[in-house]
């Protein structure tokens, strides 16, 4: 038992496992809306846009985090605005806006020259280097996201499932889109140094996909996704301590293993269902 609890003797590990668990839960929660809107690529794209603008602000002598938040919010709003034009589509809007923002950051880096900050942490995560303050930031965003989803559950669900009828039914879908953009930006900004921009994208997608494989009900998918994200954050960091792996990839690999298990399970279950239940959209 002492061996199992050994890593918890270290403050850096307690911070790391707390922040990764919270970040996993947060990604699991918000990822459901991202995946069901067909915007799985947004995590990848937004994290690059946030990285680009954060670097640009830092290079200009301003706050790295404030720069990331501003760049991310502007990019998210632009994506949602452009994606409303059906002729373009969400995937193309994400590609245009986020690569543009990323390029701006790179241009400023190349124009100014050298940097003292370790940007590797932002790219690949440095969960073992987080402070108690970082844990507080992630906890605050997780609490805000949880509260917003709790209070706007029905409106978010209706807007995600059927935006046109939600609009007709009196829901301000533009306001729901904005709420989602703000929460996603906050999520990526605070999780950037924990999971790294490349790993956030995976954690926004894998837990909800596992949830979708295991359930045909929205609220169950949401719970499963949060549980999977939480589990992967905790187990990934814990395992990484013993195996001496990088923590971010360990978290994502744990999620990938769960995906394989869920995929196999759902395939077996699908085979055992009667044909009628599998027939998609009987005309």
């Amino acid at each position, binding site marked *: 038992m002492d061996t199992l609890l050994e890593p918890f003797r270290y403050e850096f590990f307690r911070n790391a496992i707390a922040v990764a668990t919270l970040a996993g839960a947060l990604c699991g929660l918000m990822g459901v809306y991202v995946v*069901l809107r067909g915007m799985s690529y947004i995590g990848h794209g937004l994290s690059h846009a946030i990285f680009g603008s954060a670097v640009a602000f830092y290079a200009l002598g301003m706050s790295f985090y404030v720069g990331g938040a501003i760049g991310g919010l502007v990019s998210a709003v632009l994506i949602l605005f452009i994606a409303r034009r059906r002729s373009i589509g969400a995937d193309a809007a994400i590609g245009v806006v986020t690569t543009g923002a990323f390029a701006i950051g790179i241009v400023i880096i190349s124009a100014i020259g050298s940097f003292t900050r370790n940007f590797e942490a932002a790219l690949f995560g440095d969960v073992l280097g987080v402070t108690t303050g970082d844990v507080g930031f992630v906890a605050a965003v997780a609490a805000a996201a949880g509260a917003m989803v709790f209070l706007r559950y*029905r409106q978010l*669900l209706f807007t995600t499932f059927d935006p046109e009828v939600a609009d*007709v039914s*009196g829901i301000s879908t533009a306001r729901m889109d904005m709420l989602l953009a703000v929460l996603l930006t906050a999520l990526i900004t605070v999780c950037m140094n924990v999971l790294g921009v490349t790993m956030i994208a995976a954690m926004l997608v894998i837990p909800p996909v596992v949830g979708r494989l295991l359930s*045909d*009900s*929205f609220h169950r998918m949401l719970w499963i996704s949060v549980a999977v994200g939480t589990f992967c954050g905790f187990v990934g960091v814990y395992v990484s301590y013993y195996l001496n792996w990088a923590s971010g990839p360990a978290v994502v690999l744990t999620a990938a293993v769960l995906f394989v298990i869920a995929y196999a399970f759902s395939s077996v279950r699908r085979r055992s269902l009667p044909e009628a239940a599998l027939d998609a959209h009987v005309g």
Partner: protein
Amino acid sequence: MSDLVRFEKVTCRYGREPVLINVDLSLTEGDFLGVVGPSGSGKTTLLRAVAGAVRPIAGRIVRDPKAPVGYVPQVETVNWYFPVTVREAVLMSRIDGRVVPWASKHDRRDADEVLDRLGIGDLGTRHIRELSGGQQQRVFIARAMLRRPRLLLMDEPTSGVDVRTRHDVMHLIHELHHEGMAIVLTTHDLNGIAAHLPKLVCLNREVIATGRPQDVITPDVLERTYGAPLEVLQHGGMPVVVERYPEPEEERKVVPLREGHHGHPA
């Protein structure tokens, strides 16, 4: 009888393109109106404007604020792979007056009552994809009915379904109308649906004609609405629209021969 909705010279547009032009229309209690017209004629925009989701750029729309509106979308627009059970889909429309995510006992009871009323009460826990076409249509009618509407708007409620299902869905819609609900539906089906409704609006961005089917389903109105010649026969006092494709001989006659064109002989 007071109007539920009244359009006065309403013009709507998406971008620069006008979709509805100078539309006058009034809907009162007990109305049962069909809207027909070609694709892109503004039928869905008209429904959305009635519901308040599209604002006119000219004219005005007057609504009875005490008349809730239910909206049933085209089933073709539904994402059937979205993880949602029948009961979850129906309960979506209960968005007012409750902060917590879970439905109240009262909401659940209301949803079950509506599902029972529509004959799908035993399917509440099933995924929407697992239902037949007619059952799927009923789920979205149930969602609209949970708002206790006085006016029900339905966008092509019978598109993509077989004859039997179309009959069932129309039977249900007539029942709702007899219970006092005003109904507006759009359809492409002139013979199967439109000819059997009490009142039609022929729309092609502007209102071409309004009236009883036997008065508006005429070759002249249809040609102005659809931009194509259509024949109308009478069968048992009902108009029957016949699409007449040009015979090969006729087609040859109307194809203009350009100089140097070696296609069809004149």
